[in-house]
Each structure stands twice: as C-alpha cells, then as structure tokens.
C-alpha cells in the first residue's frame, strides 16, 4: 500500500496536486468549474505557459534563464512599434520571434563559448533588455492595434481562444522535438552528464546554445500574445515573470540539475499556477495571503520533486 502511494506520488505527484486544488476550489466556489472559467484559466496561463515551454529546454541542460521577463518586454515593445508602422501581421510576428531567438542565442553563446554561468549571463541580459525597452519607448506604452493583430490575443478559432491554441501547439511541438529529434535526445544527454555527452561526440556548445535560442523564441512568442491581448506594448511588462516561469517548470518536475523532466510536466505546473491565481481571486483571498499561498505551493511542489528523486 505504502509502496503504491509512493509510486503514484512519484509518477503523478503534481498532476494529483492539480486535481486536489481543482476539487477544493470547485467545492468552495461552484462557478470555478464553469466552462467559461476553465477557458479563462487556460487563456491566462498561455503567456507564462508558452514561456515555460522554452524554459524547460534550458533547465533540461541544467541551465537557467532569468532574462525571459525582460526579453518579453523588449520583444513586446518592438512588436508593438512594428505593428504601428503598418507591417503585415505575419512580418511583425516573424521579426519579433527572430529578435527573441537572437537574444536567446546571445545568452547561449556567452554561456557556452564564454564559459560564464547562465545565472550571471542571463542576469545581465535581464537588466540590459529591460533597459533597452525603456530606452526604445521612453517609458511610454505603445498601444492600440489593428484588428488583425489583436486576433492573436483576443480572437477565437473554431470556438477556442487563439492564445490557448498557440499554447497547445507550442507544447505539442516541444514535446515532439524533445522525444523524437536528435536535439531533444542530446539535451537530455547534456543535462544528465555533460562530460559524458561531450566525450560521446555531442557538440555541447551548439545544442546548449540552441536551448537558449528556443527559450528566447518562446519568450518572444509570449510577448506577441501578451501585447495583442493587452492592446499595449509596455517596457514595464513581464517584471517578475521569470519567477512564475521557472516555478512552472520546477513544479512540473523538471530537475534544476538537468537531464530529467519534460514539457508535459511544465504544462501541468503552469496550469497549477494559473489555477491558484484564478482560485484566489474567486475566493477573494486578500493580497498578503496570496503571496504566502503561492510560495507554500512552490515549496511543496519542489519537495514532491525531491521525493521523486530519492
């Protein structure tokens, strides 16, 4: 019996946690389980969720990227200004994603080639990208976009809100890449044992850098969705997002030591954070307590992760 519980916790710990939270919330507030509210949670989770997918790649290599919130701000204001210039939506999105990927690649190159710990590199980038967004906008928001661009954040396709679709596609694509491609297998190998990966002929520099490229790319994709959803690009957007994003990945069971985890766990982690935020609003928990609740859940989740590791 004890063994069975242990196995269940190891395998599905965080998923069970999410279900537990859902049961408690629906008991306290009947409206919680309404389709509109569940759609609402998914839509709100999409930005953090998309970013967390990219972060999963980085953390799988035992790295970290603290700059995602700032990359979101910088790519978001550039995206907003390109839209204002009258660029077609496809071009706006492509340029925004390219910028995100470029910043991510720079993070990766300094980390791998420059041999600086990613914590320090991305801490620097976090400050630089934030500063550049302030400089670029003069601190003022860039707001009001055309209907075509707003479709990405507020539209629906076959009845499903577009941000949720983008989020779902990102997760599916990432899961496929991690499972079925050389890139995916090498990232796990590098995270598991970098030395061994290097000795077995894997170009650690290239593949590790690619993880940061992907992380920058998803931060930019999150920026596109957020900017469109808010109808504004702001240099102050995404402050503190790196914490939610990293929390989603870690809660989802991807080990900060690398080599273990995946995007499905990250999906559950992001949903757990989104559900808790939503639930605390519905139950009208006061703001001071919200911080405590969120912190406790993160610590409990990491304890669960630890349990799995043992």
């Amino acid at each position, binding site marked *: 019996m004890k063994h069975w519980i242990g196995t269940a916790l190891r395998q599905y710990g965080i998923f069970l946690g999410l279900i537990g939270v859902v049961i408690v919330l629906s008991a306290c507030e009947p409206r919680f389980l309404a389709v509109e509210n569940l759609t609402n949670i998914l839509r*709100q989770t999409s930005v953090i969720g998309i970013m967390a997918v990219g972060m999963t790649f980085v953390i799988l290599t035992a790295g970290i990227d603290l700059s995602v919130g700032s990359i979101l701000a910088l790519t978001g204001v550039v995206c907003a200004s390109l839209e*204002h210039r009258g660029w077609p939506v496809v071009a706006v999105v492509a340029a925004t994603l390219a910028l995100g990927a470029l910043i991510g690649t720079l993070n990766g190159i300094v980390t791998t080639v420059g041999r600086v710990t990613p914590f320090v590199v991305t801490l620097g980038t976090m400050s630089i990208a934030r500063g550049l967004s302030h400089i670029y906008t003069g601190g003022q928001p860039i707001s009001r976009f055309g209907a075509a661009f707003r479709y990405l954040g507020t539209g629906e396709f076959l009845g499903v809100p577009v941000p949720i679709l983008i989020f779902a596609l990102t997760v599916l694509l990432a899961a496929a890449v991690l499972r079925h491609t050389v890139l995916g297998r090498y990232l796990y190998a590098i995270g598991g044992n970098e030395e061994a990966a290097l000795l077995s002929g894997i170009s650690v520099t290239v593949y590790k850098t690619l993880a940061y490229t992907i992380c920058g790319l998803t931060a930019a994709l999150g920026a596109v969705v957020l900017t469109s959803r808010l109808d504004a690009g702001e240099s102050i957007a995404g402050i503190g997002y790196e914490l939610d994003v990293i929390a989603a990945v870690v809660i989802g069971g991807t080990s900060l030591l690398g080599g273990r985890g995946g995007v499905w766990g990250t999906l559950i982690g992001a949903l757990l954070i989104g559900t808790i935020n939503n639930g605390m609003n519905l139950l009208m928990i006061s*703001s001071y307590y919200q911080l405590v609740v969120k912190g406790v859940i993160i610590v409990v989740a990491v304890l669960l992760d630890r349990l799995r590791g043992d």
Partner: protein
Amino acid sequence: MKRQVVFAALIGTAALLGAGLAGCQRAAQDDGRIVIGMTVPSLTHPFFVHLRDNVVDEAQQLDVEIIVVDAEDVAAKQMSIVEDFIARRVDGVVISPIGADALVPAIEALNKASIPVVTVDRKVSGGQVLVHVGADNVEGGRAAARFIVDQLAGKGRVIELEGTPGASPAIDRKAGFHAVIDATDIEVIASQTANFQRANGQSVMENLLQVHRDFQAVYAANDEMMLGAVEAMEANKVDAAQVVTVGYDAIPDALSYIRAGRLDASVEQYPGRQAREALRMLVAHLRTGAPPETDEVYIKPVVISAANLDEAEDKGVTRAQ
C-alpha cells in the same frame, strides 16, 4: 533576493557611469547665479521624466541653473550624487529620495554643509528638510470614492483593484477610498491586488468577472491596472457604459481612453506642479533667506473626467510611430 543581486550588479555600472558623467558636467561656477542640484530615482520611469522636465522649465523661468542626475534606482548611487553636489557647492538640492530611510545620511550631510534641501513626491524619515512637496494619496483615494458615490447616487456595488501589497501609495489610496465608500450604502464586493500592472489588472478582472456580473463601478489604484480591467470587461461583453470606471495617475494612455469614452475618470496628482512648487520655494528661500511658512505642501488631487480633460497635466503623449 533577486532584486538585491540585480542592484549589486547595477551599482558597479552605475558608479562607473556616475563618475563619467560627473567629469563631463561643467563645474558650478561661482558667478552669483543660483545653482540647484536635483536627483530623481529613475529617469526610465515616465513619471520622473515628467518631474524633471517641469523642474528644468521652472528653473529657466526663475533664472537659476539646474543640474539633474538620475540615480538609476540605486540608493547608494543617489547618496553619492548628493555627495557630489556638496563637493561642487551647489546652493540648494531638490531630491525625490529612493528610500525614506536610506537617504537620511544624504540629507544629514547636506544639513552639515548648510545646503538647504527640499523633497518632492517621496519623503525622508530624518534630517532637516526645508519643505516637502508631495501628493496626498489618501485624499486622492477619497476623491476617487466621492466621484463614484456621485455617479452612483450613493448606492451600488463596486470592485476595487489594489496596488502592490505593502507599497505606500497602495496602502494610502486604499485607505482614502474606503474612508469615503464605507460610510455610504455602496458595497465593495471584491478587493484584489493586481500589483499596479496592466496584465495583472486584466487577468484579475477576468477572474472576478467569472463570479461577479452585478457591479456598477470599478476603482483601480493606478491607471495601468484600470486599463487592463477595461480590456477584460470589453472582451467579456460587460457594457462599459453601465459601469463607472476610475483609475489613478492620469497617465496619457488613460486620458486617451477617457477621450474615447472607454474610461470614466482618473485621479490627477499633478507631479509637475509638485516639482515646480518645490523649486520655487527653495529658490525663494535662497533669495530672501526667510524660511517657508510651512514645511509640508500637498497638492490637491483632482478627478479628471471627460468634463475637465483640459485640467490634466500634459505628461507627454503615447509614443506615436
């Protein structure tokens, strides 16, 4: 923790930049012209850019020289800026301190050097300050509440979006708002924080709309949260015309929402007027030697709506591309 690390990283760069800038700026010449040093927390924030622009303009009108130095959100940097001011013997200092306690030594150093200092917007908790000119956030909260009470004729249900937990404007704006609202038949049905951020304002409002449809007013402790909430209401097909919406700060974006009929009002604290008043009092003291009549001046906040849009301060328009 994260912040401290960032700060530590910033201090190094800031110190280098500061040294460079100080070298570039020409030393105050003692030709009898009054020289004022001013330092603000961060020129990346439009609020302080607006403050600076007003002070620079007022300085021209008063025919005094002004040196404005950005403290880049680092208290230690602001301290050394003040030390530079003392070293170059400015006649007076205008400061918007980064921390109420952290900048007390800077104020005491100015006191020791007999250089008069005025504080704008934010206060310090010690030392001798000639005068503090600021905004009364409690009164602003009351003004927002009075606007809602008027619009709803004293009855109805209101949703409140609070600022960052623990931040003093968040606490004061909430206190003033409740002081007025709680004395009426208007019920605050939900009070949640959205951390002064637009994206948070949007998602918190979306969440609240899942359980609350029967409300007649929304009050947010800043415009960013309010504009996010307006987006959420519009996307969820809440008839905005039926809801009284009041934000705070009268930022350019909010004024354009008011102009478009998507927002009802925003509380204006006149940061530019605050800054000008502070400089005027400092210069008057330097010229006459007489101390000001009072050591605290609070600019009265005004609720800006479509009826009095022209009373709002021009804080620079939203960047048009």
